[in-house]
């Protein structure tokens, strides 16, 4: 118990009582932090827009038994661009939701924090529609469950790999195919995510395989989480 400092990204907020909110943050030093921001919903709150989802902040918190309490918050990146464009807001929401669900409380994970901040900065700087799927894929890799893409998950063949099986977290050859059909272009992009080719993939021209990669990354993450990512489909209807 006591005061502590941390840097973190707000990944989720809930209303609490009259004017408070519970905020979930993915932090550098404490994994996921759940803290109460008192009075944050009042127009004259000293927190203002600092604790909105997607904000990257430096915090001073009081450690509590169940929930911590935010004492002070300073903005490191407000990611304003992500709040003023519907497509980028949706992509950011997917990343925040996945980061929220995968991170654990009081379990230090500075890599997850750095990856999230990096992905949000890339998206803010005009990053492509490939940023969110790439982030999901790298989160899976960081969790040790990156789907195998080089050989068939069933027979080990390296022959033409034509399907992706999110349940077995791997690709399958023509003889063993099960799951979702996958094109050679999408497979090449997914391989690039894990082999240092991410920068080049993100800088490339938009192509039809991007939509396929987004669906594959979403399904792989949903299979790992054993639940749906709500923010992926929320603006469809």
């Amino acid at each position, binding site marked *: 118990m006591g005061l502590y400092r941390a840097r973190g990204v707000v990944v989720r907020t809930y209303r609490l009582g009259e004017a408070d909110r519970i905020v979930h943050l993915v932090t550098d030093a404490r994994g996921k932090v759940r803290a109460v921001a008192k009075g944050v919903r009042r127009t004259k709150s000293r927190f203002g827009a600092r604790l909105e*989802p997607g904000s990257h902040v430096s915090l001073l918190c009081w450690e509590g038994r169940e929930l911590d309490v935010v004492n002070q918050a300073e903005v490191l990146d407000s990611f304003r661009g992500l709040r003023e464009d519907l497509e980028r807001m949706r992509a950011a929401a997917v990343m925040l939701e996945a980061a929220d669900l995968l991170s654990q409380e009081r379990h230090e994970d500075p890599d997850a924090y750095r990856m999230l901040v990096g992905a949000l900065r890339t998206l803010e700087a005009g990053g492509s529609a490939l940023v969110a799927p790439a982030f999901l894929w790298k989160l899976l890799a960081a969790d040790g469950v990156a789907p195998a893409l080089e050989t068939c998950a069933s027979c080990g063949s390296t022959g033409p790999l034509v399907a992706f099986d999110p349940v077995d977290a791997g690709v399958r050859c023509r003889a063993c195919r099960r799951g979702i059909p996958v094109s050679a272009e999408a497979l090449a992009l997914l391989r690039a995510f894990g082999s240092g080719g991410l920068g080049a993939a993100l800088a490339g021209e938009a192509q039809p395989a991007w939509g396929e990669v987004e669906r594959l990354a979403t399904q792989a993450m949903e299979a790992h989480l054993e639940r749906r990512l709500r923010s992926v489909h929320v603006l469809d*209807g």
Partner: protein
Amino acid sequence: MAVYTPAVQRLIDELGKLPGIGPKSAQRIAFYLLRAERVDVLRLADAIRSAKEHVSFCQRCWNVAEGPECEICADPRREAGTICVVEEPRDVVAVERTGSFHGRYHVLQGAISPIAGIGPAQLKVKELLERLQPEAVEEVILCTNPNYEGEATAMYLARQLHERGVRVTRIASGLPVGGDLEYADELTLGRALEGRRPVEG
């Protein structure tokens, strides 16, 4: 173990279902009601019953109403052609208190929340779009909260409304009157600077 009589326990259980009321608060309120004057308690019970029986949602704007239409929609003095879109009926009261708006409202009954999985289909968006033509709406003011959910809602609605050729405006963001500049966050202060206005000399 000592227990309350069934009637008291039922009262505590029901009060405990209200938002923000825990078991201890429910007990405290229950015993306050038991000690209070009978006439006062029955007036409260009658107010709850009457509100539940008579209050529904306005068929036009989805504000709370005691009849098919709310008082604002039924008022012929309100300007037709301008709709102020808000999230909750409480926001209608907040805007009405300013005395600066004379058009009609549309209550969405919530806001889009990508992270909570609340999309336009769960809100009264279709109902808003269906009002545009019959009411000859010229301007829609997006008066959703200036937070993450409210901004997402405003952006989604702006896209839908522009496609239909309606003038779309968004309420300004900036500093609250009576506040201190040094406590303003970067986002709010940035928007306040962008939205600055010339001052008459």
